[in-house]
């Protein structure tokens, strides 16, 4: 027996782990060979276009479809009742959110429309253009009803009810309390408070939502080429709501043109398109245009938060008191609900700090607006803007440097595991080290010096710091316990090809974040082969093990760990075959450079190709009864704590033109700790892209509604997405505190950029304009809002 210990995947020779390997699958995209669902075209395929409600709230009095049916190329016209006959409505609630309620939502509006843009009638025609022509011939009579648009009055007794059967416009209410908040505030030396407003914005995936539904009645089989980040969830939803056998539903998504949380919710258009394919028994395609995206892709944020912070005079944080009101549109979104964001806000305010007292109250209310639900960094940008804006305000009152006030109150790096005031347990964070690293990175004293010098010349620059603690890689406590059929585990299968190369199929799919690359890095390392010798398959429920797929920054933590386990199983199987063939114990063998070698002295014995040849074609040369098992599958659900908490800190350096109110972003820095870094370049890029979306939230993006519920800026010319010329370079650095609950030790990295960049920018803007008495607490921080705060308009 060899005395050498078995190596963990982290200690193996020729490791790919921690290396910035470029993404092999990016070459295809660079050549214009992407396989996006919007490219899918099938024989006999027809196209659907939707008539949408022009009103925020109205009763559908009558629909005359006759002229549309006679229009050229029209295959069929379908109203809500037609689709409801074969597609069950859904209700976006979770059982563990006590008292939560929402109304049944139908794929097409049922009697009443509840937001401008809600789909009402589906027209199917030979081309999208012909379907749109026919839409104009529909005669839909509406009786307009009063629109409920302001969350502040949504619960007033004289406000109309959006769903009368619910009794009020409240979707969910919750409260988190710890310690004695009243006493803490009564005894505090300093209390600072503000009211914050966060506008609605949306994901703006560059490829809009698309599905091509192909129902084959001869097999009762539905194949949906659907731009979704959660194909298994959609397999389940399509099966249950359309009355199909789950194994007969296949969801395929190879490439996807952006997701960011937008593409994991159930929207009526995709459900209708699948139902239409069943009714018409032929492929039906729906591809949103940009206006449809703006009025029907889920929106995000929309919070009003009143918050106050109590401190001692020496700058010790006693506690936060928070009141969050969020408007979520006309329904709670299915199946993840529209309460998760608010629920995270009320648990995350003050998360980096050792506060003993805490109170946070949440109200989630309905509105006659497009639905609102989870988008990248769910709740975090709200929670950390509130947290960190108040810390800066307190630092100013106390005459302390904002870095110093943070450092005094962080949960110390040696205090883990640590239970937060809101009840979360952090396995291990590095708040203190992260801040130190950030200070170094930005050259803090010099930057302050520069700021002071320029201020004397009438140039107003500001430095903003913002910390985050982030929920990643959730286990079943997130959705599963609430009754939602959303998997928190993932599966990975691998097979050795006769050539000695490997096919790997995994349920965590590729959104461009690099899943296929990191799993190949891990598998190649564990198997002792080159990454190029692994073909990775994702995004096909018919070809991969069942799993949760891509949401809540889970790819590296869960997908990475399941890959280690599957690769180890395949490795063991390979060594068993090699041992049987070489008449030696598998424990004497190892894998390296696509070879089976002696563990003891590294002697090269046989190649993996030879193992494949023997196993598949010459099993007669193996001992009687020995059956090679060169296909394996493993599943992994996160172990230990319910979430893998990560942390980090952002800094923003801005210049505010106090005459125009325009903000110029000069620099942005991020230090983040996502546990083991598997591919530093890919983690950097997640941070940078996340920061860009946070910048959008902070300065540019807002879905603007009129008082009667009309979206007034539903185009990319009117809704401001950050452009290259508006963004700064974004520098990223890492601290690594690996999770001890998994071998790979990785935590989530996809949302850290978005979690606190808005907070850093708000603090930077306010730092810049503080000498002039300005302070902005509403996002986006438009020139108008900045000039108003400066009393210049």
């Amino acid at each position, binding site marked *: 027996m060899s005395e050498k210990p078995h190596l963990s995947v982290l200690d193996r020779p020729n490791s790919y782990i921690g290396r910035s390997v470029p993404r092999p699958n990016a070459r295809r995209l660079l050549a214009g060979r992407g396989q996006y669902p919007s490219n899918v075209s099938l024989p006999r395929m027809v196209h659907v276009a939707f008539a949408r409600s022009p009103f925020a709230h109205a009763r559908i009095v009558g629909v005359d479809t006759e002229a549309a049916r006679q229009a050229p190329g029209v295959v069929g016209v379908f109203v809500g009742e037609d689709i409801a006959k074969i597609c069950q409505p859904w209700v976006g609630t979770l059982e563990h959110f006590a008292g939560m309620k929402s109304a049944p939502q139908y794929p097409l509006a049922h009697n009443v429309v509840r937001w401008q843009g809600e789909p009402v009638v589906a027209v199917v025609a030979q081309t999208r253009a012909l379907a749109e022509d026919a839409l104009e011939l529909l005669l839909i009579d509406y009786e307009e009803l009063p629109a409920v648009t302001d969350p502040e009055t949504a619960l007033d007794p004289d406000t109309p009810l959006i769903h009368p059967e619910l009794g009020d416009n409240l979707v969910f209410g919750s409260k988190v309390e710890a310690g004695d908040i009243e006493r803490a505030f009564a005894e505090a030396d300093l209390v600072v408070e503000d009211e914050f407003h966060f506008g609605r914005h949306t994901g703006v995936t560059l*490829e809009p939502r698309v599905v091509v539904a192909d129902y084959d009645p001869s097999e009762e089989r539905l194949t949906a080429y659907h731009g979704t980040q959660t194909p298994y969830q959609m397999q389940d939803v399509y099966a249950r709501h359309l009355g199909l056998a789950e194994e007969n539903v296949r969801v395929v998504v190879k490439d996807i043109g952006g997701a960011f949380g937008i593409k994991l919710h159930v929207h009526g258009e995709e459900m209708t398109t699948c139902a239409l394919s069943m009714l018409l028994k032929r492929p039906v395609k729906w591809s949103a*245009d940009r206006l449809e995206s703006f009025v029907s892709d889920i929106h995000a944020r929309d919070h009003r938060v009143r918050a106050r912070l109590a401190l001692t005079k020496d700058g010790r944080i006693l506690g936060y008191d928070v009141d969050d009101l969020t408007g979520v549109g006309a329904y709670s979104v299915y199946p993840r609900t529209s309460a998760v964001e608010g629920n995270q806000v009320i648990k995350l305010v003050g998360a980096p700090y050792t506060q003993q007292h805490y109170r946070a109250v949440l109200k989630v209310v309905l509105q006659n607006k497009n639905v609102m639900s989870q988008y990248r960094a769910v709740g975090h940008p709200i929670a950390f803007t509130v947290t960190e804006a108040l810390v800066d305000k307190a630092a100013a009152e106390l005459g302390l440097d904002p870095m110093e006030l943070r450092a005094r109150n962080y949960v110390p790096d040696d205090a883990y595991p640590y239970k937060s005031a809101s009840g979360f347990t952090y396995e291990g964070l590095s708040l203190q080290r992260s801040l130190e690293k950030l200070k170094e990175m930005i050259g803090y004293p010099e930057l302050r010096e520069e700021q002071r010098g320029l201020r004397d010349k009438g140039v107003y620059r500001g430095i903003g710091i913002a910390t985050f603690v982030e929920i990643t890689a959730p286990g079943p406590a997130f959705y599963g316990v609430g009754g939602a059929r959303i998997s928190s585990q993932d599966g990975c299968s691998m097979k050795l090809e006769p050539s000695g190369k490997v096919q790997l199929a995994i349920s965590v799919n590729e959104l461009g974040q690099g899943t296929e690359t990191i799993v190949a890095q891990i598998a190649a390392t564990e198997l002792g082969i080159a990454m190029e010798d692994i073909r990775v398959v994702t995004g096909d429920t018919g070809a991969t093990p069942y799993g949760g797929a891509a949401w809540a920054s889970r790819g590296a933590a869960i997908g990475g760990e399941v890959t280690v386990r599957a690769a180890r199983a395949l490795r063991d199987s390979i060594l068993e075959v090699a041992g049987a063939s070489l008449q030696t114990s598998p424990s004497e063998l190892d894998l390296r450079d696509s070879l089976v070698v002696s563990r003891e002295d590294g002697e090269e014995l046989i190649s993996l190709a030879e193992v494949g040849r023997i196993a598949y074609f010459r099993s007669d040369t193996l001992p009687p009864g020995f059956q090679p098992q060169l296909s394996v599958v493993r599943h992994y659900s996160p172990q230990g704590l319910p979430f893998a908490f990560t942390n980090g800190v952002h800094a923003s350096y801005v210049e505010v033109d106090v005459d125009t109110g325009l903000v110029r972003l000069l620099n942005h820095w991020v230090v983040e700790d996502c546990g083991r870094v598997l591919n530093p370049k890919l983690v950097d890029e997640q941070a940078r892209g996340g920061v860009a979306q946070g910048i959008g939230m902070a300065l540019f993006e807002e879905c603007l509604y009129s008082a009667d519920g009309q979206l007034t800026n539903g185009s990319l010319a009117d809704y401001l997405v950050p452009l290259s010329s508006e963004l700064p370079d974004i520098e990223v650095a890492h601290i690594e505190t690996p999770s001890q609950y998994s071998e790979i030790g990785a935590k989530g990295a996809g949302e850290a950029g978005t979690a606190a960049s808005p907070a850093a920018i708000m603090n930077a803007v306010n730092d810049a304009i503080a000498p002039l008495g300005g302070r902005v607490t509403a996002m986006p921080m438009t020139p108008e809002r900045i000039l108003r705060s400066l009393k210049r308009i």
Partner: protein
Amino acid sequence: MSDINYELNLTVNGERGSFRVSPRLSLADFLREELHLTGTHVGCEQGACGACTVRYNGDQVRACLMYAVQAEGAEVETIEGITESGELAALQEAFHRNNALQCGFCTPGMLIAAADLLKHNPSPDRDQIRAGISGNYCRCTGYHSIVDAVAETCSGGTKEATQ
């Protein structure tokens, strides 16, 4: 709606062809649906996002803002053709090395815009690169790595790739 189709003769990626198209068909839809050149992407259909950027007689244009019939007699190049000619190879390599793409939906248009920038200004600084690609939205990267890739291409002795 008009059901009269017009004759269209043009050269796409070096291949000449004759078609009959509806006068309302956009150049982007023509390329994608008639010629199956799906590397040209459609993101907004109003000229804002740049995902449909192609070359028209050597200049970059928004294929969603042109009707196919306007391309009568023209030479149109798409990402497929420009890739196969090898003209963009250095830029594509730099994008790959720098991970200057995530979902890849903006990438064909971004590459064509970046090549156009380098044609007119072979050694732009970072601000000029940012200005040069500011007509092309990318929702994934935050642009930093795209700027890196373009900067690397123009400073790395690979100018022949863009001439």
